[in-house]
Every structure is written in C-alpha cells, then in structure tokens.
C-alpha cells in the first residue's frame, strides 16, 4: 500500500471514529455516575435528525449542533426520570429509548430524506500543524468537530481524575451512599450526568448528519450507538482508551470502505459485517485479558434508594 493510501485510511479512521467517540464519552460519563443508558443509538438518531433539520432551516450548522445537544439531553432526561426517580429497570428503559428515538427521528425526518444542507462542517486544516509529515494530514486535516472531540477527551479525563467534582462523579458510580453521606444530592447529580451523556450522544448523531455524511437517512447510525456502548466496556470506563477504541473501530470501518474501492473481490455485505464482528471479538479479548472481571463501577445499574442505605 502506498503512503498516501495509508494516510487516507488513517485520516478516515479518525473521521469514522468521531461519532462513536462522542457517544462513547457520553455513555462513559453516565455510567461513571452509575446509570447505564442503552438508549445511545436512539439519542444519536434524534441528534442526527435534529441537527440536520435545524441546519437546513437556519443555514447555520452550529445551531444544528446546539439543538442536537439539547435533543439528546432531553431524551436522556426521560431515562433519568425513569431510572433515577422511579428506579425502573435500566436495561429496559434504555431499550425503550432506542425504540422511541428511532421512531421519533424517522417521524421528524421523513420530509428531509435526500435533502442537502448548504452549510455543513467541511475539512479545516490547522495551519502549520497540518504540515507535519504523516501526523499532520491524519490528525490535523479534519473538521472542527473532530478538534472539539480531542479537547473533549482531554477535558473529560482531567475532570474525572484531577478535579473534586470528578472524584464525586467516580464515587457516584462506586458508592452513592458515601456521596449522599457528605450531603451531596445523588439524584440531582445523576440526572445531570445522564443528561450530559445524552447531549454527547446527540452530538455524535449530529456529527454523522452534518460532517461524516452530510444528509439525513432513517436509521443512519446503523447501530453505532450500540458500538459506543460496547466501546465503554472495552475502554474500561477511561476516556483515553475510549478515544483509542473509537479510532480502532473507525479504522475497521474505513478499511472496509477502502478495500471496496480498491475492488477486492469480497462481497460488500461481508465487509460491512466487519465492525460488528470486530466489536464482539474485541470485547472477548478484553474480557479474556481481564479474566472475566472488569473494573466496572460497582453501583452501575443499581438504582439508588435512600431507604435502603
């Protein structure tokens, strides 16, 4: 393979990995607070359609991104209400959110299928940095949302490990009773983090419809939300590992596409299976390495009940 081809596959890996990265970061934050939200795919879809509709109507993709964040956050609010306040089953509530989100996005977006937004996020090479050999064109010849995702990963890691608020976030998922005992409102904080998670899933969706493949198509996530959920486990709830994992998945995605372009005699359907097969294999490998025991947040999935302290 020539150098330019390798560079273009690597750059495409980052682009393809970014929507998953946003969503995975969001899910990571929600799960760190102790709430598992399997509605990521639904929230991404609603984010994608909202972002696209607003952008088409206002001509400003930033409005689109803003509303996608809000839409994802609002959907997550339903999940938070059900699982935090009503202590409902988190698995089933998340599934409901996915179902509802895919129906809602389809309903809202019917008129927008096949439309084009005039202003979307194009490539924006960073002057100077993008001239560095190999790294430049791979890392710094991306669109602005990708640069935002770099910052977001660093910020999340810093928040999680280096700040007092981050300490409480980690404690929320490990031992909510301890957080409660120092006078912090467990319920309110979980609401907050679940909504942050939803907003980021919405952003991941908007990335799909405004930068990755600027258009709207029903079910355009093609299960990326679920890959993001798997990725959080793969990442063992660490932001930097989530970044690495996302690009790995993006890489598999991009590789399939490039193999197709080169004209390899493999069916497109088999190539399209790769990311899903890869997800399963990677999960298995991580679990084998960790002997089946993952350092997942201890209170993940367990509703907090003050009466049962």
């Amino acid at each position, binding site marked *: 393979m020539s150098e330019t081809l390798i560079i273009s596959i690597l750059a495409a890996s980052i682009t393809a990995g970014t929507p998953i990265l946003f969503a995975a970061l969001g899910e990571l934050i929600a799960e760190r607070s102790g709430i598992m939200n*399997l509605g990521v795919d639904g929230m991404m879809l609603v984010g994608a359609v909202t972002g696209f509709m607003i952008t088409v109507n206002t001509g400003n993709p930033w409005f689109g991104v803003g509303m996608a964040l809000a839409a994802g956050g609002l959907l997550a609010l339903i999940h938070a209400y*059900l699982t935090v306040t009503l202590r409902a089953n988190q698995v*089933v509530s998340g*599934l409901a959110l996915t*179902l509802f989100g895919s*129906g809602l996005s389809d309903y809202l977006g019917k008129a927008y299928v096949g439309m084009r937004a005039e202003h979307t996020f194009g490539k924006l090479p960073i002057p100077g940095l993008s001239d560095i050999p190999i790294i430049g064109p791979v890392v710094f010849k991306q669109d602005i949302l990708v640069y935002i995702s770099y910052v977001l990963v660093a910020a999340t890691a810093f928040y999680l490990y280096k700040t007092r608020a981050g300490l409480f976030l980690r404690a929320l998922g490990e031992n909510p009773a301890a957080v409660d005992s120092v006078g912090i409102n467990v319920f309110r904080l979980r609401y907050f983090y679940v909504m942050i998670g939803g907003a980021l899933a919405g952003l991941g969706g908007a990335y799909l419809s405004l930068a990755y493949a600027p258009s709207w198509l029903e079910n355009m996530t093609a299960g990326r939300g679920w890959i993001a959920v798997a990725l959080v486990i793969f990442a063992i709830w660490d932001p930097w590992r989530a970044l690495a994992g996302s690009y790995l998945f993006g890489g598999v995605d991009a590789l399939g596409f490039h193999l197709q372009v080169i004209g390899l005699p493999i069916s497109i359907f088999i190539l399209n299976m790769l990311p899903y*097969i890869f997800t399963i294999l990677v999960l298995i490998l991580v*679990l084998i390495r960790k002997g089946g025991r993952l350092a997942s947040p201890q209170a993940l999935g367990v509703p907090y009940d003050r009466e049962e302290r």
Partner: protein
Amino acid sequence: MKIRLEKSLAQNKTSQILVPVIAVFMALLFCGVFLAVTGRDPFEVYQAMFAGALGSEYGISETLVKMIPLALCGLGIAVAFRMQIWNIGAEGQFYMGACGATWVPLTFPNLPFVVMIPFMIFMAALGGGLWGLLAGWFKTKWQVSETITTLMMNYIAILWVSYLVYGSWRDPKGLNFPLTAPFPDAALIPTFGALRVHYGIFAVLLLAVIFWLFFKGSKWGYETLVIGSNPVAARYAGMDIRKNVLLVMFISGAISGFAGMVEVSGIVGRLQPGISPGYGYTAISVAWLARLHPIAIVIVAFLFAIIHVGGFMIQTMGIPSAAATMLQGAILFFVVGSEILTQYEIKFSNKEEAQDE
C-alpha cells in the same frame, strides 16, 4: 394520617393488570399531544389507525399476520428475560431462522409437504437457536454482555441474508432481483382462503399455552426464574447456571428462528432482504408489556399489531408510519415507569413510628 408507598412482597393481581392498561393510555395521550403539536388531529389519527387495523376482514387478517411474528419473537424473548438474560437478538435469530428454513426447499425442492414443513421448522429452530447459543456461549465462557453481542449479531445476520440473496441463493430466473427462487407449494404454510393470514397462528397459540404451563408448573420454569432473580441462592441450591444460560439462549433463539420460518413460508414464499420490519425489536416491548406472561404476550402482540397495521394505514393521510414505532416506544416507557407502582402498595397509617429517618 400519613400516606406512603410501601414495598409489598406479594404482587397485587389487580394492579398488575391495571397498571399496564393505564400505561398504554398514558402513552396514547403522550403521543397524542405530540401529534397535536406537530399539527395533526390525534383523534383522527388514532381512529384511522384503529379502523384500518380492525375495520375490515382484510384489516383483521393483516393484523393477525403481524401478530404472529411479534407473538413468536415475544415468547422467545420472554424465555430469556425471565432469567434476566437480555437477549435482544430476536431480530437476528429471526433472520437466521428464515435462512435455515429457506435452505430446505432450495436444496430439496421435491420433498412432500409432510416432510418439508417439519424439516424447515427444524432447520429454522437450529439456525436461530445456534445464533442465540453463540451469544450464550460468549457469556458463559468469557462473561461477554449478551446485550451487546446479540445486538451486534442482529446486524451480522441481516447482512448474511443479504449476502446470500445477492449471491449464491439468487434466483437465476429472477431478473437479477435479490430474491431466492419462490418456494414450491409443499414449502408453504396454508392460508385461510384468499386472506394472507395463515395456519401459523395455531403454532402461536399452541406455543403460548406450552410456555405458560412450563413457566407455571415445571421445575425448569421455576429454576430459570430463581436464577434470574437470585443467582447466589440458585447456586447454593445446586442449580447449573451455565447450562441454563446456554439452554435458555438456544430455546429463545430457536423460537425467534421459528418465527422467521413462519414468515418466509407463510407470507413471503421466498427469502429476500428486509423480511422483518423490526419484529424482533418490537417484540421486546411486547414481552415486557406482557410481564413475560405467555398468554398476555399473544394479547399484547395483537395490540401492537393493531398499532403496526394502523401505522401503515395512516400513511395515506401523509403521516409517516414511524409514528407507530414512536407510540410503541412510548408505551414501553410508560410501562417501565409505572412498574414501581406494582411493586409498592399505598399504605395509610396514623402511627408515627411508621416513618423512618
């Protein structure tokens, strides 16, 4: 006088039925408001859905046609969910079942009906069952979350069917359409007269009763319930959790696989992409709304089929059928949210010591 919610150990029968019914009405109300906000008359829409699904012989037949796969997949899902095994792979198992069933008439087109149909059922159950078993094996061997693997395997199964019908299984006489050759008559489940509704409906009723008896009366039905709700106690009681996970995943997948066979043999008459418009996903709501009770699953599947067919009918009014998916999601929300009400009892008391803190 103090009013408080108290956890009750024995679940209240009336509230178990009443609460889901109220939840469905709340969901209708919620989506009604949404329809109104987006400029539709909710009453008109609901009426059109209802009339479309039940207002004619054709409508009822179509509703039953949709009920069959929803109820079958719902039963398959219930087997797993009872044990808190979150198999959300019914969609993929459905496709694998359809694939297994299709292999029979494509390979042995001249078998007589009495051999063909049982053979197809067997292959479908095997296809869906093994697909489920694989996820179960990942879980027992390496503790891989079945939620994610079954979901990923849905996509793989759907692509696999596409691979076959665009490739080696494509009908040479099919003008290049991605379809297999039509099944011979011996591979088709008979229908009721000229309607599309077929004898597969008897299989639904039979399976529902069998599962009901099994869940209620058998040792195995009890074991799976205990393993789900209290794995530690189950282990102390000497129950083989590993074996049960594998068994449950196989049965769960086999039932959904059978649903796939019923669909290709009873409705489509060949294998083609997109044979399921998401039955496997909708069936998750069906199973949960029915509280995993086999008989209730059939009833709820009928209700969801009404929504599904109704959603199709309202397209003529210019409303996307996705409104129906949305409604189904909303119903699940309200059901999940109201669950807490069935686990608690409203207690009235005067006693001060009834309060803690």
